[in-house]
């Protein structure tokens, strides 16, 4: 390590960096060194202080939070803790920043060309600017340059927007690129492309890269050195391969064991095999399209283009695809939040549109949904008990108060939440706890089929792992049938026996999860499998 240090230039040298909110310290002394041409990872869960560290280096801390100690040396120049003009100029010239969600980091009312122009150093002439912008877009791998320049951010995909953001970050020839969860908001295959791009730029331009992520798989694939951060401290650092092969700190081991690809699979419940003969849900030639208002007037967007699918009792099927593949639309139709244009949905042999009132009520109880976002799926005004009471009162009329209360306790036990959480409001719960409440709400109706739409994608990896284990246990205990939607094949491999790959509203491949993942027949499935981060773990 020392040999490397003497030979290459150090772009960023952070020593004993301390950050605090008023009198409360948040980050307690962090040391990071990023050499030119190398990629350094900063990994930790939400709340570990990794983003604040990155923001402090970039001089973008929120006003209430200040640097309370330590030094930041950027390209040989030490920065003062208070941002004077000189420091700011030096930062602007040396650092490029790429944020998590590309679309909000672009101005929605400005064309891409104008935003890129703004990012160039002041006083760049018109002609020079045009040439430089074209060069930058070429550099980040955008092929249709004229069209992109003319577009507004909302007309481009997330992946393209992230490329534009990277181009903006590169506009002033920075020496250091700070990427804070640059791909968390993107589809898996796009993720891989964006990270490939960052890698190639690092090599070509000799950039130092500070990659901040909660995903240890991405860190494993993409960085030379890693710092593991927990509760405002760096608990372990070193060459990535060494740290991940033989982690010394318990927290690092915990992070590693939480990666979906490392979760030990539970054997599917024995009953599942024998019950697998009875179809519970049958979809035949399901079609749905939306009209979208775009630049060329109203256009039709086909979300589902003839989907046939059978779900047997006790089976767990993973539905995989990228955003826009129609997987969420499919789930919403099955659960009755959306109507299909044509085709039929049969539950227990009965077509949805031909149910009697009583059958409909039964179906409503049998089929439940777990939402993706645990933050918006709970009414902020209701306590946990009130949220859980709703399905109990609506679906099991005539329960006494005491009985309702007893069932709420039982549900909380089942999702492993303390019973006194019943009085809490969503704002007093963490993301994982909220998702547990969401799961308990789904279970309250005593369902047989549970549809889960990306139930863990908004959560930290270790929380993800716990929720996945919970879902696996519930399946075994309650003989549940799962339709599990995810963009993450590793998650699907953990939980599902079978997998269905959806693309542009059509099923391109289906089969046993292990078979499909081991030798995918469709090229699209192949790209999805290749894009799973953590291949080098």
């Amino acid at each position, binding site marked *: 390590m020392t040999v490397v240090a003497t030979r290459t230039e150090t772009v960023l040298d952070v020593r004993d960096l301390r950050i605090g909110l008023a009198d409360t310290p948040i980050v307690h002394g962090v040391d990071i060194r990023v050499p030119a041409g190398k990629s350094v990872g900063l990994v930790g869960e939400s709340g570990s202080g990794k983003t604040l560290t990155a923001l402090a280096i970039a001089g973008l801390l929120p006003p209430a939070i200040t640097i309370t100690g330590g030094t930041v040396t950027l390209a040989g120049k030490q920065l003062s803790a208070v941002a004077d003009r000189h420091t700011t100029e030096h930062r602007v010239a040396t650092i490029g920043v790429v944020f998590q969600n590309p679309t909000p980091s672009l101005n929605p009312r400005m064309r891409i060309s104008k935003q890129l122009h703004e990012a160039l150093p002041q006083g760049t002439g018109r002609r020079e600017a045009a040439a430089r912008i074209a060069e930058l877009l070429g550099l980040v791998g955008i092929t249709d340059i004229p069209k992109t320049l003319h577009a507004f951010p909302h007309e481009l995909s997330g992946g393209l927007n992230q490329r534009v953001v990277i181009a903006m970050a590169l506009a002033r020839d920075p020496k250091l690129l700070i990427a804070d969860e640059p791909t968390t908001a993107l589809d898996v295959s796009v993720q891989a492309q964006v990270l490939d791009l960052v890698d190639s730029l690092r090599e070509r331009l000799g950039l130092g890269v500070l990659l901040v992520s909660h995903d240890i798989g991405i860190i494993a694939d993409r960085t030379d050195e890693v710092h593991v951060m927990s509760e405002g401290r760096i608990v372990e650092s070193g060459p990535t391969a060494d740290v991940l092969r033989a982690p010394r700190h318990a927290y690092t081991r915990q992070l590693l064991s939480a990666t979906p690809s490392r979760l030990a699979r539970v054997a599917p419940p024995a009953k599942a095999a024998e019950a697998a003969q009875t179809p519970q849900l049958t979809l035949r030639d399901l079609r749905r399209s939306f009209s979208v208002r775009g630049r060329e007037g109203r256009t039709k967007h086909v979300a589902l283009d003839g989907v046939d699918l059978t779900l047997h009792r006790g089976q767990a099927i993973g539905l995989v695809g990228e955003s826009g593949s129609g997987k969420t639309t499919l789930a919403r139709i099955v659960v009755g939040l959306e109507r299909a244009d044509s085709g039929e949905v049969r539950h227990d042999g009965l077509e949805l549109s031909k149910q009697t009132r009583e059958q409909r*009520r039964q179906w409503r109880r049998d089929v439940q949904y777990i939402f993706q976002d645990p933050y918006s799926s*709970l*009414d902020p*005004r209701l306590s946990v008990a009130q949220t859980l009471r709703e*399905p109990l009162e609506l679906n099991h009329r005539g329960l006494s108060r005491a009985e309702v209360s007893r069932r709420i306790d039982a549900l909380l036990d089942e999702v492993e939440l303390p019973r006194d959480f019943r009085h809490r409001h969503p704002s007093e719960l963490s993301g994982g706890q909220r998702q547990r409440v969401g799961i308990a*709400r789904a279970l309250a109706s005593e369902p047989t089929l549970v549809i889960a739409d990306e139930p863990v994608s908004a959560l930290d990896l270790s929380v993800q792992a716990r929720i996945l284990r919970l879902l696996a246990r519930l399946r075994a205990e309650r003989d549940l049938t799962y339709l599990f939607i995810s963009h993450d094949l590793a998650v699907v491999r953990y939980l599902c026996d079978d997998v269905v790959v959806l693309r542009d509203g059509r099923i391109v491949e289906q089969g046993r999860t292990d078979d499909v993942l081991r030798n995918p027949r469709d090229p699209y499935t192949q790209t999805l499998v290749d894009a799973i981060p953590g291949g080098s773990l």
Partner: protein
Amino acid sequence: MTTATLHKGRTIGIGGWIGAGILTVVVAATVLAPWITGDPLEQHLEILLQAPSAAHPFGTDDLGRDLLTRTIHGGRTALTISVMSAVLASVLGLSLALAGALFGGWVDAISGRLADVQLAVPSIVLAIVVLSFVGNSFGPIVLVLVLGSWVLTFRVVRGHARAVIEQQYVEAARVAGAGRAAIAWRHLIPSVLPLLAVAFTLNASYALLLESSLGYLGLGVQPPQPDWGQMVAAGQAQIFTAPWIAFFPGLAVVVTSLGLQLLGDGLAERFTGGPVTRRGTK
């Protein structure tokens, strides 16, 4: 971070407290009127048109009636009518707004167009037309006041309800088996209640002003029953010789309506962080 935590610690402010104070005094006085004052119709022909004095703090009118008594009793009529109309206007506005948000489609379109029509017709003109046809008794007056003021509640509640209905927790409630009524009762109404309180005070203030205008125009409650607007009109003839006859009932209208506005602004600040009328669909 939810709105609840963001707004914690916000109060209705000094203005709001002043408004609440004014209203408490006005309401207490009018409710207790029969016990704290005499008969508003009692005439004393020996003390016509007396200026305010210790015996008659607001002076007397051209029939020798005590103006303080009449002003307090006038408030009974004005406030009963205003509050009643504000309640009905809130209920009407709330129902139409919730129906629009829950059913969408043509229900929403029709209620929205109704509101547009209402906004296009000046309510005072509508009131004059209606009252000159059906006569000016209690019922019709309340009717025209409701017609004139439900739109405010409707627009405020509809904007908010439409935003709430899009929330995922409302979908979650649908999956849990909730019908429209259950969604309205469990999720929509609790979330619009603060806005409704704000809209109610503003509605009441608006109804009070409109009711007084009608009284002034002779379309309100008929003499000898005292009413603020009508008393202002009666005092107008002597505005130069006995200004107090018109001044005190006029002041009562201004002060009460100011109290309502201040309280409304205070509540808006407390619950929504800004004037309620400026909130759009967010």
